[in-house]
């Protein structure tokens, strides 16, 4: 019965002209629903696209899930907040990693493809309602950047540096500034996991000598990984290492030795006071006195070439008092707006009718939605209505049904 419903819904949408592929996979459903045993753990059905390479994803795959290879997932996302926590927990349960291909993702991909890397860097800002899928799109861009051999600077969730920061120490090199130690070390470890191969292959070397303290020096001409490893082994210098690494990568990209993709989630948190960041005298440290913030803001400037900056602004990244609007002008404040203007805004909306039914299909196939009425027509409409087509609300509803 639910099959009929889906066909009815899909007919009203403009089907791609080259629908041979989709027809073939629809026929697959009739076979897969009848077969009881399938040895592979992967899901199959017409909601799933068989393409795993993000470079080849296009309008044909719009509104369907594509799966990320397990090795790439382990390398890029697992240790760190690459994707939101609830999504990673679900991936553990489903034994696979599937991402929905949505229009903002395809638009962003096309823009990044069409960019001229010889011109100054373009900033893309994803904005939208709470839980509408901004972090997921940012995360899947990391996969795309990795396939296209960009060096990834992936700062997954800025509130980890503001609200949930682990340790703040006064900086040894800068007067009046404070450093994040544990956060910076975590970032550098993950930078290494994501980019070690590419850095070795491209053989990027430091342009000058860096002296971290009286006895610790990184020589000129050593691989950039040396800076990363120094930061990991010496937490006190970790934020400084991060800052130097960013400066080096910017310079090297401008000289066309490499391409860099900067991804940051919840950037608006950098411009607000945070009462959880306290110095040794138990007084709040203003955002202008934090090295890590300076490092990140430096990345978002347009004074370099050979890369792309993709960023999200999220209302949830801020404290409860600052959540009046979801639009970039309000969230970035004056300082942020001046830093980011001009940028390319991309709005991420809630699911369309087709996308939400596809997600429900996927949950049903993975046996996550257990309520007997979930697969009926009325059940699906009820889920769609209750969740107002918002991805996060749908996930929360389906968690307990």
């Amino acid at each position, binding site marked *: 019965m639910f099959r009929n419903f889906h066909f009815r819904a899909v007919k009203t949408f403009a089907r791609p002209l080259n629908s041979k592929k989709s027809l073939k996979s629809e026929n697959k459903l009739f076979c897969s629903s009848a077969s*009881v*045993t399938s*040895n592979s*753990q992967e899901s199959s059905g017409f909601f799933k696209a068989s393409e795993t390479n993000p470079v080849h994803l296009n309008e044909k795959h719009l509104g369907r899930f594509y799966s990320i290879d397990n090795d790439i997932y382990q390398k890029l996302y697992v240790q760190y907040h690459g994707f939101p926590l609830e999504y990673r927990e679900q991936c553990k*349960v*489903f*034994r696979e990693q599937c991402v929905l291909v949505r229009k903002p993702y395809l638009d962003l991909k096309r823009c990044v493809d069409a960019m001229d890397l010889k011109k100054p860097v373009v900033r893309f800002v994803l904005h939208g309602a709470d839980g509408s899928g901004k972090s997921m799109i940012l995360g899947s861009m990391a996969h795309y950047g990795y396939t296209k051999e960009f060096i990834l600077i992936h700062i997954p969730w800025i509130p980890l540096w503001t609200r949930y920061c682990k340790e703040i120490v006064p900086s040894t090199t800068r007067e009046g500034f404070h450093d994040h130690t544990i956060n910076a070390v975590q970032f550098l470890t993950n930078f290494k996991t994501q980019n070690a191969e590419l850095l070795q292959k491209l053989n990027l070397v430091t342009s000058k000598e860096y002296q971290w303290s009286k006895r610790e020096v990184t020589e000129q001409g050593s691989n950039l990984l040396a800076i990363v490893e120094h930061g990991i082994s010496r937490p006190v210098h970790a934020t400084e290492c991060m800052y130097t690494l960013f400066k080096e990568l910017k310079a090297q990209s401008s000289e066309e030795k490499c391409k860099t993709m900067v991804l940051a989630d919840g950037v608006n948190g950098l411009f607000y006071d945070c009462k959880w960041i306290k110095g040794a005298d138990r007084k709040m440290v203003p955002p202008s006195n934090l090295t890590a913030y300076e490092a990140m803001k430096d990345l978002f400037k347009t004074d370099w070439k050979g890369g792309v900056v993709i960023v999200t602004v999220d209302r949830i990244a801020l404290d409860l008092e600052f959540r009046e609007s979801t639009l970039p002008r309000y969230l970035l404040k004056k300082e942020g707006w001046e830093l980011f203007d001009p940028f390319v805004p991309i709005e991420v909306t809630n699911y369309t009718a087709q996308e939400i039914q596809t997600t429900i299909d996927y949950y049903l196939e*993975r*046996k*996550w939605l*257990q*309520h*007997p009425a979930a697969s009926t027509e009325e059940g699906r409409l009820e889920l769609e209505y209750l969740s107002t087509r918002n991805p996060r609300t749908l996930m*929360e509803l389906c*968690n*307990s*049904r």
Partner: protein
Amino acid sequence: MRMGKKELARSIMDKTFMTIKKVQLAKYYNTQDPEERAKIILNPLELLHKAVENSKPFLETTPIKRGGHTYQVPVPIRENKQQALAIKWLIEAGKEKDDDMRFFVKFGYEIIDAANGTGKVIKKKVELHKRCEANRAYAHYRWS
């Protein structure tokens, strides 16, 4: 539900159902054998009903005074009280001391155990029934 906090009760139950689904799905995806897969119940609501059904005691002992002595007399339990006791025991088992585990996680595990016929709650029920069986000699005191 305590103090009329239905929202809290609801959110705890939602998290419990999510844990149950995760545990059962892990078992489901670990086996490839279709027979074993058919035996695993994935619906958390179904498991909950089964757990409550399995942990309902039908006899309990009540103190009755006859001739200066108090005897523990086995007595049948009404349907409503049976269900109330089963649910209360399940919740208490979930609250038992285990500092690392959240309540809804432990509660989920207790429900799955009870539905399978094992676990603390079933043990408690069986011990109650044994006490009643041991005291069956006093059963006539209920009416004398």
